[in-house]
């Protein structure tokens, strides 16, 4: 794509702070008509915030937004849409209880005699759907369609108005390969019509397949804008994750010195759940850190949840110490010494309105039942110990957990499980969205635990982190376990496994 006419969207020096977080710092961004522009960055890099600033959800603290050369300041998504900026979010933001036609046209429906003209509405909806080559009955209820189709309906809604800019925020995370291809076909149609498309995805292959240009963000700051063709994967990955050496190098040494040949603690045999993760085999030894690598949606979390009994497996079995464990729910896993820190700290981890103390002892207390409270003395000494050991701040056991920063919340969640002295600790993205200091502390903690004989299953979107910490790396793709690598594996090998295989499959299909 050669240099095109002036950008349709230009954002200059955007800064935005939330309480305690600088979400965006002096970010510039350009979007040209007729291009697919990928916005790249890790979780927490500021992608969503930048998008929301563009679409009028957030108002920047400083900086300006120009649409076709004119300064604009949207105060709601509705205003942005009126100006021609439509957004499709990761979760389908439509009303599943209404019909397809209504979802496409509600708010600007054709009228007759003051009422909604359903016939005209269905015709118009069918027309819009036809434009992107989707043929479904506009009168059908949205709920009756799979998520992928709902996603396409959301796009149809976005382009039903005069749309100059289409923002697609992780639209592919719940789509399979065929559905992604369909989406890309539609994106190309729109791009060729001159629509500027802002695209966010965690899947590198998709970025390279569809995008013309990319902007990379890291920690709320702009790293650079590049033409996709001029940016190779390696350069992109290092731009996204940066280098955090120094503080973390010592940990690598530790993992090499560690003896990970203990007895097999947990053994999964053909464990699987339809629609979540294909049956897999897995051994985890005492004192070993097993890393789970794979892209978002590859089945990482699903695998962890099966091992913990958070979801019920519909095939296979799980053995702990060689004896089959019938997982009826988290309680039986906990009884067997398995602990699980969910990636969704707020939703599935912490109890935000309780104090640090209560959150710390929650799992232990739950295991004892309500009638045998943890004695105050024991509680206090545990709390004191872990506040100090994990450097939790504020070191006030009565502080409500919701007032803590992300890193400290994560430490409280970790501490909750450490209190139960688990034999297998499953950590799902324990370092996501927390500051570097806390990150290093958590990585160090994992290393120490393993050295003391605890088995750890470590999940992270950051390959570098997984490679550095793990004694063994399990690679997942498309909800299948595809490989196991030993601790000496390099990032390149893992990336190759994930990326290479995926490309191979796409050409095959």
């Amino acid at each position: 794509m050669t240099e095109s006419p002036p950008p349709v969207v230009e954002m200059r020096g955007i800064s935005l702070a939330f309480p305690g977080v600088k979400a965006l710092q002096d970010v510039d961004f350009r979007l040209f008509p007729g291009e697919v522009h990928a916005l790249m960055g890790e979780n927490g890099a500021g992608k969503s915030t930048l998008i929301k600033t563009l679409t009028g959800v957030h108002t920047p603290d400083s900086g300006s937004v120009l649409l076709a050369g004119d300064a604009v300041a949207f105060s709601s998504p509705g205003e942005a849409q009126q100006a021609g900026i439509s957004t499709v979010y990761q979760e389908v933001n439509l009303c599943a209880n209404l019909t397809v036609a209504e979802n496409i046209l509600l708010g600007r429906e054709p009228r007759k005699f003051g009422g909604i003209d359903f016939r005209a509405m269905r015709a118009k909806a069918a027309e819009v759907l036809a434009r992107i080559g989707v043929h479904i009955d506009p009168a059908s209820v949205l709920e009756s369609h799979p998520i992928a189709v709902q996603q396409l309906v959301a796009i149809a809604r976005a382009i039903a108005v005069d749309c100059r800019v289409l923002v697609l925020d992780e639209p592919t995370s719940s789509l399979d390969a065929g559905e992604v291809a369909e989406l890309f076909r539609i994106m190309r149609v729109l791009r060729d019509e001159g629509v500027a498309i802002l695209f966010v995805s965690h899947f590198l292959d998709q970025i390279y397949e569809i995008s013309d240009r990319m902007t990379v963000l890291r920690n709320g700051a702009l790293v650079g804008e590049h033409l996709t063709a001029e940016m190779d994967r390696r350069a992109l990955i290092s731009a996204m994750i940066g280098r955090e050496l120094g503080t973390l190098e010592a940990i690598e040494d530790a993992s090499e010195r560690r003896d990970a040949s203990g007895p097999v603690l947990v053994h999964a045999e053909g464990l699987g759940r339809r629609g979540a993760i294909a049956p897999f085999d897995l051994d985890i030894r005492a004192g070993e850190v097993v890393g789970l690598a794979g892209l978002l949606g590859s089945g990482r979390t699903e695998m962890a949840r099966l091992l913990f009994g958070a979801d019920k497996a519909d095939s296979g079995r799980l053995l702990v110490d060689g004896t089959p464990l019938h997982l009826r729910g988290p309680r039986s896993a906990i009884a067997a010494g398995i602990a699980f820190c969910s990636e969704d700290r707020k939703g599935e981890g912490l109890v935000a309105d309780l104090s640090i103390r209560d959150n710390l002892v929650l799992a232990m207390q739950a295991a004892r039942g309500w009638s045998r409270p943890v004695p105050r003395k024991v509680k206090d000494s545990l709390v004191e110990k872990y506040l100090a050991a994990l450097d939790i701040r504020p070191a006030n056991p009565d502080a409500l957990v919701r007032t803590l920063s992300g890193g400290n919340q994560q430490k409280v969640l970790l501490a909750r499980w450490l209190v139960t002295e688990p034999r297998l600790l499953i950590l799902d993205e324990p370092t996501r969205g927390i500051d570097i200091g806390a990150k290093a502390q958590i990585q160090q903690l994992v290393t120490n635990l393993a050295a003391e004989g605890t088995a750890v299953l470590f999940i992270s979107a950051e390959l570098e982190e997984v490679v550095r910490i793990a004694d063994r790396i399990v690679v997942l793709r498309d909800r299948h376990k595809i490989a196991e690598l030993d601790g000496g594996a390099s990032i390149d090998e893992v990336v190759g496994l994930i990326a290479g295989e995926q490309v191979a499959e796409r050409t095959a299909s």
Partner: protein
Amino acid sequence: MTALTQRVSQRVPARFLPVLATVVLFVLTFGVGSASYDGFASGQIIANLFIDNAFLIVLATGMTFVILSGGIDLSVGSVVALSTMVTAAGLRAGWPVPLVVVAVLVIGSTLGLLMGLVIHKFDIQPFIVTLAGMFLARGLCFLISVESVSIKDSTFRDIATAVIELPGGVTITYNVVIALVVVLVALYVLHRTRFGRSVYAVGGNEQSALLMGLKTSRAKVGVYVISGFCSALAGLLFSLYMLSGYGLHAVGMELEAIAAVVIGGTLLAGGVGYVLGSLVGVLVLGTIQTLISFQGTLSSWWTKIVIGALLLVFIAVQRGLARGPRRRQTLTS
């Protein structure tokens, strides 16, 4: 075309199942009555169902709006009582009938508006706000008079006793006509106007509705205005029916209205349901009452027990239906 777009969509019959079940239930209960008692299967009995429940039809219609939007309105019974009181007191004071009617409707709508605004602007649960509204309205009744006030106005009495003769010698009152007009208007508003569709949208997913650029605040407040208006109108019909105003009229009628809406197949979680379902729901409740009165030896409390049991069945059915299609969403999102 690809496999994706070829997936043939069907209209989900599951959405209509609860309403269909209600209709079947109505036919069944009525059939049981007709088979058991002579004179049950007469046109006049059906007409009486409408005559005796006209106010409840209006009430359930307003309640349908609120429940569709995902809210609840506990104040309706009290607003009915307040309306009968204002009507009776106004007429006693010599107000002309049109003025009384306008006053009642304005009071009801205003109460609804106030509750809607508090719910929306301050983000307080509808349950507690309308509970306060329920107390307020009933308290206001007693502020006007603690005693029952009978209606002696001749114009009003004439309207109350006037009957319309239908073919076949069946007679109905003007109450029935008004109730049916309300249902028709509600049908139009819910299905043909942007406001109506916004009500469904808000009940389905408020966040999405907002992101879709719909006027969610208008829908959220509007449903309580409509419910308030319907309650006031139902209060007028109830005054015509009882020819008195009393602070203890319509005690617990909000529960009957909610029960009728739920039995009519509307999801209490919001977003799914039909006004016609609520209408049939009211008729089911009415038929049960008629059945029990025909039976003679069964006491009136059986009505409550049967309504409770029906509620349970419909809630359980809805629960079962909700579990099916949602599964995939929870997995993939």
